[in-house]
């Protein structure tokens, strides 16, 4: 059976209504707010004050840097994991079990998991006490409450998303292509570099975009694991609404963050566009 375009439009009504009501409308209000004076009237002054303030820039760069690292780390850990699941777990039930194990942490609260990292990374945490006991260090390392702990915390939460995204594409890579590469004289490592990896790029790209976007907008993990020492945009934005009562600045910061993120993701996609087109 084929859907006529009228039928299709009818089916799309629900999603479109949802999108307009709960995303487009509030988003429009947010943009409007960013161009408004607290006492009323249109202005660019919010943007001027945000963009001329080093403190905001600092938070923005901090956020992007942390998100970049989270993306890199979850790729570096997620790719081998996905490769292992797809190429070395032969039994279907084994694969299913690993998928479930990967998903299980997503069912628990981020807050609980962030506190878990405090237990592990703290001055008297498992990492430091083991290193001390082994005599590898003399004074506890300052891992917790910094960029590193935020990156670890976020990468840990977002790793399954990266791994599953890569898995879904890696699974579709035709095994006979890898055999063809071997047949034509490629060592296993060369076959991976020349064939398997390029063909799995769509999964890597999709995974990195999701992980990057979720890192940029993450609030809970940074606020618990920063210990107040690191400022990221979501915390800053929250403060504008909840502490300093400057919704106009909060809205401006949100728009700036969104614009910069879209710009980065856009250039990332353009960078890979030619390769992705060849693969897809």
């Amino acid at each position, binding site marked *: 059976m084929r859907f006529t375009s009228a039928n299709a439009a009818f089916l799309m009504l629900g999603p479109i209504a949802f999108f307009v009501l709960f995303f487009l409308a509030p988003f429009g209000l947010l943009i409007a707010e960013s161009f408004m004076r607290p006492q009323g009237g249109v202005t660019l002054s919010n943007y001027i004050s945000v963009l001329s303030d080093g403190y905001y820039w600092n938070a923005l760069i901090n956020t992007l840097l942390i998100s970049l690292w989270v993306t890199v780390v979850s790729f570096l850990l997620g790719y081998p994991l996905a490769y292992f699941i797809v190429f070395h777990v032969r039994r279907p039930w084994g694969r299913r079990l690993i998928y479930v194990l990967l998903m299980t942490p997503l069912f628990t609260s981020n807050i609980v998991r962030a506190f878990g990292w405090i237990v592990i990374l703290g001055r008297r945490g498992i990492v430091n006490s083991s290193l001390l006991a082994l005599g590898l260090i003399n004074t506890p390392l300052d891992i917790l409450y910094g960029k590193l702990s935020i990156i670890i915390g976020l990468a840990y939460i977002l790793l399954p998303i990266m791994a599953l995204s890569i898995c879904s594409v890696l699974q579709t890579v*035709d095994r*006979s*292509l890898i*055999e*063809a*590469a*071997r*047949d*034509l*004289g*490629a*060592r296993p490592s*060369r076959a991976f570099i*020349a*064939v398997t990896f*390029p*063909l799995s790029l769509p999964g890597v790209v999709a995974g990195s975009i999701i992980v990057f976007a979720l890192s940029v907008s993450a609030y809970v993990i940074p606020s618990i694991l920063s210990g107040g020492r690191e400022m990221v945009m979501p915390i800053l934005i929250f403060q504008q609404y909840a502490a300093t009562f400057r919704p106009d600045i909060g809205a401006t910061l949100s728009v700036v963050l969104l614009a910069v993120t879209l710009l980065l993701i856009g250039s990332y996609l353009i960078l890979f566009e030619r*390769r992705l087109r*060849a*693969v897809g």
Partner: protein
Amino acid sequence: MTLDVVVVDSLVKRYGPVTALAGVSLAVRRGEFIALLGPSGCGKTTLLRAVAGFVEPTSGEIRINGRPMRGVPPNLRPVNTVFQQFALFPHMTASENIAFGPRRQRLSPAEIHGRVRDALAMVGLEGLGARYPRELSGGQQQRVALARAIVNRPEVLLLDEPLGALDLKLRKRMQVELKRLHQQLGMTFLFVTHDQEEALAMADRIAVMREGVIVQLGSGAQIYRNPATRYVADFIGEANLITCQVDASGAVQITPNGPGGPYRMPANGTQQVSLMVRPESVRLGCGAGADHVALPATLKDKAFVGSTYRLYLVLADGQEIAAEPGCGREVDELAPGAAVWVHWHKDAARLLED
């Protein structure tokens, strides 16, 4: 012996309880075109993959140019494969696909360029090197796959049902081209197929496989005329297989209570044999002389197939046979139910033990 480029020696491959190869031996002569023929699951692809290095045999040995191949990975074997679904790299152009092998051999860029150009010309794809596989038709993709393999000048070219993905017309054309390429290159071809026509059309020798063993090896004509078993007769070409009784004297009776036929079995106690006769050998009429076997039959059905009629006949004992007696007027006028006589020259039939 120096002529044999590939020697397969009692090769066995088991997957758990399943035996894919049950002791295959085969010597491929240099420059020969051999077809491995059999239905799916007969082990022909496993044998090819064992030669390519993708399947490690359970026991037995493969030697290429006298060198044992056990433990030698696919990238170090002097063979190349044309895969069933072509297996072209989708993210590389046709030229890049073809250059993949020469690049691994670390040839100079000029040498690689020259070889790629020659290979493209060899398969008739000049000027299409910059296209991606998805921009090529099925036949063109097939040619790229061929070029990508022969550009490495392998000792043996392994072809895994390479024409299976093409439509009938293209398949016939590619058969001719493959054969031309084989003659032009003087390369050894080991070709896997389940299509007996394809094997007959192209191969110098055919290895008919069944359940992990080679049941007969020989030229197409040899196998067609002298099938070793009922299975081979049935698989290669069309065959009438008439079940016959052997009487005490060793005479073969084609129909019960009929006269002892002109065929005799060595007295080895066999009670029942099959008489194999090709439909094109079965003629209408009583025949002439003692060299012919003649039987009464009833016409059940007839079909016009272009160059001939195909007749479906029932013998006196109920067994059915097919005949292709050509397109004469006498055949034109036959109607189902007609009582006729059929005959064949006794040398046109073979006795096969069941």
